């Protein structure tokens, strides 16, 4: 299987946005799943590592739909990380 490298927009909200320091960034990645992408991002710097260290406290959306750590990223354009929602 060939490694596909794709450009994905990664978005952060609420305290993830604050701790990572940017609301969004474009990453070139060959990550096949959300879990792979998290591992890559956590390797970027201490802030990414800290924010993504406890993924039980983080929710994920792939192309604006809630997803889990095993969700495939083939064809995905946008992945968002955020805390559990507190709407209403």
């Amino acid at each position, binding site marked *: 299987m060939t490694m596909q490298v794709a450009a994905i927009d990664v*978005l952060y*909200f*609420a*305290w993830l*946005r604050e701790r990572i320091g940017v609301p969004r960034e474009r990453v070139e990645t060959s990550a096949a799943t959300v879990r792979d992408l998290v591992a890559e991002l956590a390797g970027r710097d201490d802030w990414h590592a800290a924010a993504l260290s406890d993924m039980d406290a983080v929710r994920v*959306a792939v192309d*604006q*739909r*809630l997803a889990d750590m095993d969700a495939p990223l083939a064809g995905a354009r946008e992945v*968002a990380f*955020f*805390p*559990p*929602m*507190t*709407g*209403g």
Partner: protein
Amino acid sequence: MGPRVIVQDAPFDAASLLDGFGAGAGAVVTFSGLVRADDGLVALEIEHYPGMTEAALSDHARNAVERFALTDALVVHRFGRIEVGAAIMMVATAAPHRRAAFEAADFLMDWLKSRAPFWKREIGAEGPRGWVAAKDADEAALTRW
């Protein structure tokens, strides 16, 4: 005609949004969530995920319409700074009979609390406080449906 979904930072006028809502129905239920002045709170700041918010609210409102055979549904949710006493959001449901209207409003709220991409932060007189933590009870409430 699908349910109406409004996501905005400006205050909304519940009375004008509800004017004519539920025409032909037998039962209309509304729920409004307001900012309470707990612990010296002066406002809430609400962050959202533009694009996903509207799509998720629309999807869920359509689910509610189908599941409870609603004749009408409305979801309004603000983002940005919302002062104490002001409305954060409102849902309205219309159905032939009251049970469906009540249950659909309850269902929409349970979902909104823990599945709609909004995050609340408290603002005190001293400035921004921390992000509001999600409640286990809100997550658990979803298993009712």
